């Protein structure tokens, strides 16, 4: 599934800004490197009312003041404009006309058989919703990732319509000027269950990416656990050395106690006592550390793994009711001197809705297994190859 984001070039910035400002009632006088924008007092916008100068392209931020703004992909003014426009009308309606280009299925496009004509006969109107979701994925080890995805669901059957989502993206680029029409017919009650379905479909569609990031995060966590383990192992070794040093010092003192004179015996006894308590403390620390090591540092592991967990946030940003038509399409196919007409279920914006199988081997016709010949029904490439 393709990402729904649009890359923000300077020309796109200017195109969108001009159209948006005019649509809310501003006027613009354009000249080479700057625009003079008048924002009438009575319009509802966060942009300061009155006259402004918009300077095209980048420059130092110092140039910005109340009346002079920079216009480029990263400028504060443009970002403000996007926020405002995005929130202005997050739901609406759009219709996909049956006159829009007819697209033949990939199993025909990839074959040598040609389409001589195609005739779509719409039988009934259908409605779908298309939701734009923002998916934010955050972990400690990777950069935060944001995806924008369009999901389309038929309102009656709740079936997923990936082709329609693609058509939706194609008709809502910055180049398109008018594609919406009228008020939304669906109510909140209609939409809630559809939104649920759309969320599920969305998660399915981003599963691949989530898996990748999950794998990265797991790997980063593993390395950290491993590093921690190595560090502790080193610490254990150090403690063991210290442990054996103390032990031999204690032995030396015991020797002294047995052989020395009174004064040195008392002194040695005192020292041995101190060392023994130090030894016991060390022994305890060492045992504890070894135990933790033997059980695989469970707390530390948990803490590391928790810290590396993936936080996925799904936010629906816009919801569009899309009207489309369903019916039948007749493709007139031609292969040399042979003609054949195929009738298939079709929808505007969703393309061919039927699965078609090879008339000889019953295998499904797909992009990779396209139509090979129409001389005897619709025969696929695989079965012609096998012959």
């Amino acid at each position: 599934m393709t990402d729904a984001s649009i890359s923000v070039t300077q020309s796109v910035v200017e195109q969108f800004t001009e159209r948006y400002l005019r649509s809310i009632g501003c006027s613009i006088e354009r000249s080479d490197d700057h625009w003079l924008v008048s924002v009438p007092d009575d319009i509802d916008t966060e942009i300061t009312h009155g006259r402004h100068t918009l300077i095209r392209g980048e420059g130092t931020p110092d140039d910005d003041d109340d009346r002079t703004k920079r216009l480029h992909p990263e400028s504060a003014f443009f970002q403000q404009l996007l926020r405002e426009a995005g929130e202005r009308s997050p739901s609406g309606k759009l219709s996909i006309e049956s006159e829009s280009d007819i697209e033949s299925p990939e199993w025909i496009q990839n074959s040598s058989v040609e389409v001589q004509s195609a005739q779509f006969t719409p039988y009934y109107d259908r409605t779908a919703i298309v939701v734009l979701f923002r998916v934010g994925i955050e972990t400690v080890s990777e950069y935060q990732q944001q995806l924008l995805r369009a999901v389309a669901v038929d309102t009656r059957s709740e079936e997923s319509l990936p082709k329609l989502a693609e058509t939706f993206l194609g008709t809502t680029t910055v180049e398109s000027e008018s594609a919406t029409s009228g008020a939304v017919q669906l109510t909140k009650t209609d939409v809630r269950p559809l939104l649920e379905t759309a969320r599920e479909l969305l998660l399915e569609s981003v599963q691949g990416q989530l898996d990748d990031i999950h794998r990265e995060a797991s790997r980063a966590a593993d390395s950290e656990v491993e590093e921690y383990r190595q560090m502790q192992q080193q610490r254990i070794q150090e403690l063991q050395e210290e442990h054996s040093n103390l032990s031999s010092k204690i032995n030396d003192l015991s020797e002294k106690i047995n052989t020395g004179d009174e004064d040195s015996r008392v002194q040695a006894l005192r020292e041995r006592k101190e060392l023994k308590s130090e030894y016991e403390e060390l022994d305890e620390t060492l045992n504890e550390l070894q135990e933790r090591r033997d059980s695989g540092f469970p707390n530390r592991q948990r803490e590391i793994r928790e810290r590396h967990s993936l936080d996925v946030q799904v936010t629906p940003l816009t919801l569009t009711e899309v009207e489309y038509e369903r019916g039948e399409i007749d493709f007139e196919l031609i292969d040399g001197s042979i003609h054949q007409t195929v009738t298939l279920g079709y929808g505007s914006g969703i393309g061919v809705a039927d699965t078609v199988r090879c008339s000889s081997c019953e295998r499904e016709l797909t992009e990779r297994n396209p139509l090979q010949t129409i001389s005897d029904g619709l025969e696929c490439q695989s079965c012609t190859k096998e012959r």
Partner: protein
Amino acid sequence: MSGYDLVDIEVTHESADDLLDSLSEDGTDGSHLQSIQAVRLQAGQPDSELRSLKELDENAVKLLEHQVDAAYRALFEMDGKALLADEVGLGKTIEVGMILKEMHFRETDESVLILTPAQLAKQWQAELREKFGLDFVCNYDDEFEDFDAHNYIIASIDTAKSERHRQTVLDRDWDVLVLDEAHYVKNEETDRYDLIDRLSYNYAFFLTATPIQNELTDLYNVVSLLRPGLFGTRDVFHHYFVNSNQETLVNRDELQDRLNKVMIRNRREDTDIDFTDRTIDTRTFDPTPKERELYQAVSDYVKGAYSQDQGQKLVLMLLQKEVVSSPVALKKTIEKRLYDQSELTHADELESILDLIDEIDTVTKQERLLDIVEEARDNVEMGRVIVFTQFRATQQQILDRLASEGYTVHAFHGGHSSSEKEQIVEDFEEEGGILVSTDAMSEGRNLQFCNILVNLDLPWNPMRVEQRIGRVHRIGQKRDVFIFNMALKDTVEEYVLERLYHKIDLFQQSVGELSSILSRLEESGTSFEDEIFERLVAADSEVDLENDFDAMAVDLQEQRELADKLEEFNSGVFEGFDLGESDD
């Protein structure tokens, strides 16, 4: 790898209440479409196009598709931290130039540090200036003060890590770090590695054609400097990607996926680079008896003076080079030495050299040059020939001589302003004739409209020779290129030419190939010019000298073979690795 399921995924669905509430609102016509567009733009990458491309001068640099792609990917897909590992000769410097140009355009390059092997620093400086209009100070420039005194610096990595500069380099937060021949930091126990590891920077571009030098962990070290953690710990990398005998990679797909995030490697066969042929014609001439006498006198003087005072090395080296260029070049330096320094030892020797100079009335090389330009006048479009010399005095004499023979001549040297230089090149293109140039040209323009080049004398630095040739033999040259080398028999020049340059096939090497040989040489702590000079003055006899030069040639040959082998080895390791952008 283990632990895959031990890291949780938590999905939170944000409330849709606001969105649902908006269902009942009546938007104006088109406002919903604008909301959709705005949301899509907000999610988009701000302008991922190379905006500075149109600013580049097409005459100065011809960009190839793989270079533009590499610059784009390094900047926008790798977040400005990339290992550029194209095969030799595909223009990694150009890729970095484009990256730096773009960053300059976007004003994200307040401080840039380029670290290179010493021998390549000036070459980098020239290329960035000439092709991208980017001005850097080089640590070999007089104006260079220290690493905190300039914002755009090209320096040899060894200068940067030296005790004198190290702390200054480390104290600064650099916006951009470029590291050429990055394989020299492969060993984590060296000062070089330590320097790069401690440097603070936002963006980094490492260059190498051979990321792997000895073993596959080299790759781990270089990549880990750029992207710590990409390969996990050293042990993990070892266990997972390298088979036990260190020679092959395992789990290639996974390694490729991860390398793809940080490394770009273009292969020659995937690019459309195509050079025309080069023909090399080396002509050695018998000097006249007077010239031979002069040569011998100068060589004896240099040898004697150097054995007494090694501090005079530079000027002695200069004399030795001038004597084979032209008597007039030599004369200037000797006069200067005689009259500027009152307490000069050997003054009488110098005086007698001056006498010998005055006795010379035929300068062999200049006479023979006439043969070449004469031939060109008859056979080449507008008789265009470029003659290179290292010395202004020689240049002037040749210009006078050629003009007196009725040739159209043009002079080019470092003393011209840059608009004058442009005019000279333009005149040369329009009027044809002969352009006599000093090496100031090698850092200058592109002359692919001319295809005949004469080396009247030869720099002792192979890089300089290649720079000269690079003026005419470059992408855009449509004809075969002819290089004439002129040398006098039994002189240092003949040794350098015959014994060294031809041995390493210098005249057929690209800058990239040469860089890898020279930087290998530098690794072993040797400067080419010094090496030549030391051998020259140390030899006791003719036979000694020949043997010395042969030994040096063997060294070079070895370095060259090693460089070739490494390149082959890396190709082998990465073979079957599709390191291009993936399609999904």
